C-alpha cells in the first residue's frame, strides 16, 4: 500500500508539474480547453440557439453572460489523478491503457455536464453559481474519478478470480 501511495504521488506530481509548464499549456491544454468549449456549445445549440463559443468562452447572446473555461475546469487535473492511480496499481499494460482511455472519456462527459450546468446556473443565480462552481463540482468530479477507479479495481479482482 505504501508503495502504491509513493508511486501515485510521484507520478501525480510529475504530470501536474508538466501540465503547468507554459509550452504544455500553450500547445496542449489551451487548445484542448477550447475544444471542450466548442463541444459544450454544440451540445447546447440544438436546445438553445442564442449561444456562441469562441476560444475558451461560451456566451449567451441575450443576457451577455459568459463562462470562460480555465485551468481546473477542464478535467485535466482529474484525469491526471486517475492516470497516476491506474499506473501505480499493479495490472497489465493493456488493462492500464484501457482504464485510462475509458476513464478519460467518463471524466470529460461529467466535465461537460459541469460546464453546461454552470453556464445555466450562472444566468439564474450568481451566488449559487459561485458556490456550485467552487465547492460542489470539484467534489463530484473527484467522486467520478473514485467511481471509475473502484470499477477498475472490481474488474481486476474479477479477472484475478477467473484466473485462479
Amino acid at each position, binding site marked *: 500500500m505504501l508503495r502504491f501511495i509513493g508511486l501515485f504521488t510521484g507520478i501525480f506530481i510529475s504530470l*501536474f508539474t508538466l501540465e503547468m509548464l507554459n509550452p504544455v499549456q500553450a500547445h496542449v491544454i489551451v487548445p484542448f480547453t477550447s475544444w471542450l468549449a466548442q463541444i459544450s456549445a454544440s451540445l447546447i445549440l440544438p436546445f438553445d440557439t442564442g449561444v456562441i463559443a469562441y476560444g475558451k468562452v461560451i456566451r449567451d447572446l441575450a443576457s451577455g453572460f459568459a463562462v470562460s473555461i480555465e485551468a*481546473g475546469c477542464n478535467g485535466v487535473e482529474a484525469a491526471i489523478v486517475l492516470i497516476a492511480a491506474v499506473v501505480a496499481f499493479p495490472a497489465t499494460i493493456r488493462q492500464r491503457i484501457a482504464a485510462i482511455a475509458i476513464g478519460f472519456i467518463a471524466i470529460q462527459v461529467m466535465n461537460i455536464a459541469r460546464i453546461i450546468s454552470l453556464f445555466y446556473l450562472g444566468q439564474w443565480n450568481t451566488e449559487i453559481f459561485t458556490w456550485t462552481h*467552487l465547492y460542489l463540482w470539484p467534489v463530484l468530479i*473527484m467522486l467520478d474519478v*473514485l*467511481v471509475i477507479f473502484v470499477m477498475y479495481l*472490481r474488474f481486476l*479482482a474479477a479477472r*484475478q478470480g477467473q484466473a485462479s
Partner: protein
Amino acid sequence: MSTNVTPGRFIGLVFLLLLPCYGLWYLLAPALVKPALGFAHLLMTHWMPGIVSAVQMDGTQALILTQFGELEGKLVSAQAVGHAIGLAVNTQILSYSIPFYSALMLATPGENKLARYANGIICLYVVLTLSLVCLCLKQLMTNLGHHYTDQGSLLQPSPNLIALLFQLSTLILPVLTPVVLWLWQSKDTPLLKGLLLPLTAKPDQP
C-alpha cells in the same frame, strides 16, 4: 449499519451524506477553519515578520495584515501611515475538504470509526494549514511585488514554486487529500479489502 457495503451502495451513501455534511460545513465554516488559521498566523508571522503582522479571521475569509500601508499610490511602512494593507483569502476553497472527507468516512463501515475519523481530521488540518500558507504567499507575491521578492530570505520560495503550490493547493489538495486519507484508513475494511488485494498480498513462496 451493515459491515458488508457494496461499492455501489457506498457511493450512493456518499452522495446522500454530502448534503448534510455540506450544510453543517456552510453553517460552521468560520469556526472550522480557525485552528488552521491560528497555525498559519504563527507560521507566517515567524517566517516573514518584515511582511506579515497577522493572519486573522474576517467572516469566512482569512485576512493577511501586512507591514505595509499606502501613501500616494506607493507602498510604505504601515507604522509611518498609521494603517496596514490587508489581503483577503477565501478559506472555503480549502475547507470544503472537511465535509467531503466526513461523507466518505461516514459512508464506510468499520471498527474504531471515531478514532480513525479524528486521526484523519488532524491530517486534513495539517494539509489545510499548509495550503492556507500557500494561498497567503501567492497573495503577498502578487500584491506586494518587489516588496515581497526583495526580502531575500533563504527560505523564501521562488515565484514559480509559489505558482505551482498555489495551483496544487486550490485545484487538487482539497479534493485529493480526503480520498487518499479515506483510502489509507479504510484499506482493511470489507469494502476495500478485496479490491486492494494486489497491494497487500505477499508474493508467492517459491
